[in-house]
């Protein structure tokens, strides 16, 4: 489980800096692609064609939007609390970016291969909560404050089922290390946890339903944690203007935007790592496997789940607040706890 940068340059501070920059270099083009995907897929699902003017079939639209955001005047409301108002987007972005530190891209590249990767991802998610409250309160706007409070209530509620999913996988994998979790699933496709994990025998089929339920539970909670539709009540345009980023403009708004898209990738990558074998090839170890193909599989699978998030966004309407809380506390949490206990029991008798 090496880190190819360390292999190339050696273990020094330059290598560390390069490793820090690689995820950032990844996020920017990814965000452009995701924004284009959001525009285009959203349009296609509504039988429209989407942006067509910028570049060939409108492929340069996100670039144009970034340029527009760069040129925009950076407005700070006069009665806003300026230090916190300026700090908030950065804290939100740090929360999203920090998770990239432990996301593996391939067998040979993981920015930081700490043994507590899953736990770390779970922990740094809380940065975004603080940043959102900070921005919402510092904007000195009723809608911002309402959006921030909604967002916090939502993220805190849905962290619990997500944590239960992490615990179940940690129980069955015996580790919190991302690379080890993926290595456990390497080999043929039925070694992936969604197909019951690497253990053989009849007991495998007992695992499958629980893993599928956990998979769905995590998919739903990840949507809630990234404030995506149908759980976008913190930003519900029709109710509270734009929630916590109502007052933000220009590059500070772009930071919130990038953080949202980075978070989308993070949760998709976690789904892929936990249930779909991470960077391992679906054709087993013989075909299209290896460090370079690993990047392809990892990013490709994660992009598929980014697509699923976009797909859901253009399918489902927004939930009401009480429906959101009902789903989180009365459906997902009991289901995930039940699955966790079942998996712990099965792992024990196995």
């Amino acid at each position, binding site marked *: 489980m090496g880190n190819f940068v360390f292999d190339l340059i050696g273990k020094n501070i330059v290598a560390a800096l390069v490793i820090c920059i690689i995820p950032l270099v990844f996020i920017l083009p990814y965000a452009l692609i995701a924004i284009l995907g959001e525009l285009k897929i959203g349009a296609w699902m509504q039988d429209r064609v989407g942006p067509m003017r910028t570049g060939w079939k409108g492929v340069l639209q996100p670039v144009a939007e970034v340029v527009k955001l760069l040129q925009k005047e950076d407005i700070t409301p006069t009665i806003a609390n300026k230090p916190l108002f300026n700090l908030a987007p950065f804290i939100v972005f740090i929360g999203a970016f920090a998770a990239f530190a432990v996301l593996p891209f391939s067998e040979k590249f993981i920015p930081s291969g700490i*043994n507590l990767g899953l*736990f770390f991802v779970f922990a740094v998610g*809380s*940065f975004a909560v603080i940043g959102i409250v900070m921005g919402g309160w510092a904007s000195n706007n009723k809608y911002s*404050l309402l959006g921030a409070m909604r967002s*916090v209530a939502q993220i805190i509620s849905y962290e619990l089922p997500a944590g239960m999913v992490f615990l179940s996988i940690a129980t069955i994998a015996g580790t919190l290390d991302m690379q080890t979790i993926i290595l456990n699933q390497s080999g043929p496709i039925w070694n992936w946890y969604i197909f019951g994990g690497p253990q053989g025998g009849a007991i495998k089929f007992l695992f499958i339903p629980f893993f599928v339920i956990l998979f769905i539970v995590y998919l739903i909670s990840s949507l809630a944690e990234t404030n995506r539709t149908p759980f976008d009540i913190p930003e519900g345009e029709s109710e509270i203007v734009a929630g916590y980023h109502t007052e933000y403009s220009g590059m500070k708004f772009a930071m919130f935007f990038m953080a949202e898209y980075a978070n989308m990738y993070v949760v998709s990558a976690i789904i892929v790592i936990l249930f779909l074998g991470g960077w391992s090839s679906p054709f087993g170890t013989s075909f299209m496997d290896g460090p370079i193909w690993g990047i392809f599989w990892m990013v490709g699978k994660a992009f598929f789940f980014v697509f699923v998030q976009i797909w859901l966004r253009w399918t489902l309407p927004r939930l009401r607040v009480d429906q959101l809380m009902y789903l989180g506390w009365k459906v997902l949490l009991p289901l995930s706890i039940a699955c966790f206990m079942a998996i712990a029991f099965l792992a024990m008798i196995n």
Partner: protein
Amino acid sequence: MLEALFYIFAAMIIGSAAVTAFTKNILYAAFALLFTFFGVAAIYVLLSADFLAISQIMIYIGGILVLIIFGVMLTTNVSIVDIKEGFTGKTSFIIAGIFSAITCIFFIYLAFKMPFINHAPKDVKLPNDSTIKPLGKLLMTNYLLAFEVASVVLLIAIIGAAMIARRHDD
């Protein structure tokens, strides 16, 4: 390198803790606490306690700090930006200052003079592995009773907090 990191994070902790203690704006204090907790987590990393560092981030920043901010928002008029929460009084301010300064000097004196300082190894080889496995083993063997009691305490705290904070409308 590690020295520089230690001083940066120590400065961050002390600076933001001072903001927490001295600012009049209660939400500034709450948000300064974010940096204190984060700095303490970084100090844990420097002390090679990785599990505790991440627990610190998750529990203090994701749990306690959010609780505190919610508490502030529910008990203060936060819709105005200028929240002023004063101190108990000038006399107590001076007395507390002197008292805290004495405590601080006493601790620093202890840190230099206590005999165990000399026994502490100057350069300890860091364990290459995560602390999570030995910690788990300790919790499940030597500290099993304390662990169980802690979990019961947490359960009681959940129920108790929900009981107390419940609105007594009837």
